């Protein structure tokens, strides 16, 4: 029962072929499927090649800004990081923990008209929310907490 060359070659070739195509499948469109995370300040500074790209934006829902609409079910609200505020149009049902004055992460795209369109919101309890300008002022710890509350 020794190896014959042809058999070995055949096996290795077919393994490589199948493995390669599976690997291509796994890695080929990996980059396109990454959804990057931004803050409202970064979003307002978007260059046009970021328009209509799927991104996630984390911030605090501005108190008193949430307006629901019945058809199609959804709402509009303002999302802020302290330095910049963006208007968000949301279609769908927000999660249970979504609340004004609390942290939320929205997934969707930024349009040329300066409007964020989203159909997915993730929310967390975030009593330890700290506006982001503090972080710019050099307060490191609150930033971590802020990110933590937003991370899903």
């Amino acid at each position, binding site marked *: 029962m020794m*190896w014959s060359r042809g058999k070995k070659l055949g096996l290795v070739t077919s393994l490589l072929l199948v493995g390669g195509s599976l690997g291509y499948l796994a890695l080929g469109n990996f980059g396109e499927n990454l959804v990057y995370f931004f803050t409202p300040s970064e979003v307002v500074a978007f260059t046009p090649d970021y328009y209509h790209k799927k991104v996630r934006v984390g911030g605090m829902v501005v108190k008193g800004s949430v307006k629901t609409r019945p058809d199609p079910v959804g709402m509009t609200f303002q999302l802020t990081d302290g330095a910049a505020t963006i208007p968000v149009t949301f279609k769908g049902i927000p999660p249970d923990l979504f609340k004004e004055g609390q942290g939320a992460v929205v997934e969707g795209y930024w349009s040329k008209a300066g409007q964020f369109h989203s159909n997915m919101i993730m929310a967390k309890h975030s009593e330890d929310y700290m506006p982001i300008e503090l972080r710019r002022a050099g307060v490191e710890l609150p930033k971590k907490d802020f990110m933590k509350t937003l991370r899903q």
Partner: protein
Amino acid sequence: MIIEIGHFAVVVAVVLAAMGMATAVLGLQTRNDQWVRVGRLAVTLIFALLTVGMGSLVYSFLARDFSVHYVATTSNSKLPLFYTIAAVWGGHEGSLLLWVFILSAFSTVAVWLHWRTQPALMPYLIAVESLVMFGFLALIVFLSSPFERLFPAPLDGRDLNPLLQDPAMTMHPPMLYMGYVGFSIPFSFAMAALFSGRLGEEWIKLTQRWTIFAWLCLTTGILMGGYWAYYELGWGGYWGWDPVENASFMPWLVGTAFLHSVMVQEKRKMFRVWNLFLIIVTFSLSLIGTFLVRSGVLTSVHTFATDPRRGLYILLFLTIIIGLAFGTLMVRGSELRSRIELDSIVSRESVFLFNNLFFIVAATTVFLGTLYPLMLETWQGSKVTVGPPYYNAVFMPIALGLLFLMGIGPNIPWRKASVESLSKNFRNPLLVGTTCAVLLFLLGIRSPYALAGTLVVGFVATTILAEFGKVTRMYAQRDQVGYFQGFLRAFAANQRRYAGLVTHVGVLVLVVGIIASTIYQTEKVVSLHVGDEFVIGPYRMKLLDIHEVKGPNWIGQEGVFQVFRGERLVTELRPQKRVYTASQTPTTESAIYTINMGHIFLTMPEVSPEGVAVARGVLNPLILWVWGGGAIMGLGVLLNIFRPRTRGE
């Protein structure tokens, strides 16, 4: 007082774990059996002490002793009894204690069970198990103690996360941990084989039942997690490629590869290094899974930890265990080359090889998608996520490929298959599969994955049915009995193989359920007043009333919906919007009606002060096949574990 007893017991257990390692090593060096006996005693005592530790924690929960910090953070005086017990593992500290408690139980059973037959491997088994227990116990005692007191004691607890107050969720962590920890036994035996140089097939045969038992627990745990997500989270799905789900899925994928590939070593003495590699990876991924969920690296419903030292500690511990395992494998690897090689590409061996390849690619995909965002954040500071579309795109083809191999593998001969046997075995099944797909196409099904899935499922199902039919007839004729008796006798005659086929049937049922409930899910979101109605699929839902409801630890609103099909009343559904009073956490409770093995799933996520309700209806066809398939898989595994012992076992 009681909690201090538990604390003390666990502290003593740390010392005993260190002793277990030391005595095992001493026993090896001095070749003195007495040391190993002391090691066995240490392992057994650890189990006894951890039982005391768990018991004291359970007692503190039941006594509602909120002066214990952990009790105060995860329970509340109004929490029902059932969930009060489950709250023991409702947080980080208690989960870790449960983890190592299960580990100590398994280690003790393994040491006593294999003591007589495997004296030479015992010191290694004791050393490895003690090392893992030591790592976890030290973490519990020094960085993550559930026994700490809180001063001054609060009047009441903060309550268990309402989302975790669900029957499936109470059993989900223990099952998952039994799976993770169960893999530590084959891992330890593999390490014993590596260290001792007894590198034959012995450790594989010894641990076959352990492996499959661990796999059963892990599978059940994962399915329970899906079940919980489906019934409790109210979004109408059961799998979201959440990092926490992925953490348990990775060891499952490699563990599944392992329990298939060991068969090749048993039958053909091949894949020796590969099998050691697979079990090391499986157990490493079990540890990584625990690490990911319990360190606070990922933050979601399951994650409680915030202390960075914990993460650092677990990382260090992981590095030691994984480094030790792979280091030994590399050193010993050269002695392991099997002399027997593959005869032909068209053989069962090579099907197993491809099966492994598919599972490894699948696990790598999940690993990459779960850990790449963490690495990127660590190194570049930018945050990314990898969304479900990525996983779905990769997993659909992989799943189809694996299913196809599932039809081929059991029916292709070892060593070398002839063209005639291939065509004889597979022509009819392929024909049946194709016919099913064509029929569905004519019925109007156009999704390529649904059609391809049907083809492959039809193919595999036919191979299995054909084999059961054949052996049933054979035994019925040979013994002159009825077909049912014949089937039972055939099954008993080769129970290991047929139990495996039963599990495969479960997989098929599960896959049909997943395809139907994923591709043919219908969803509708509307807002409506009392008296309004909306249409979803063939059903019409009318909101009759919204009223207040109250539970032991929550208050809420309940919508009363009547579901009609045409003019016929099908059922009444009552979804709720709850607020858990202690934590002021709102939750959405779904209402579900089962029809034709599918679900009408209704939630009412919002009720405005003016009485306008938002309702979300989901139709999930054949969703029961998902859970049913899981149950059949479990049945197959149980039939395997409790099969009568055959010669050579």
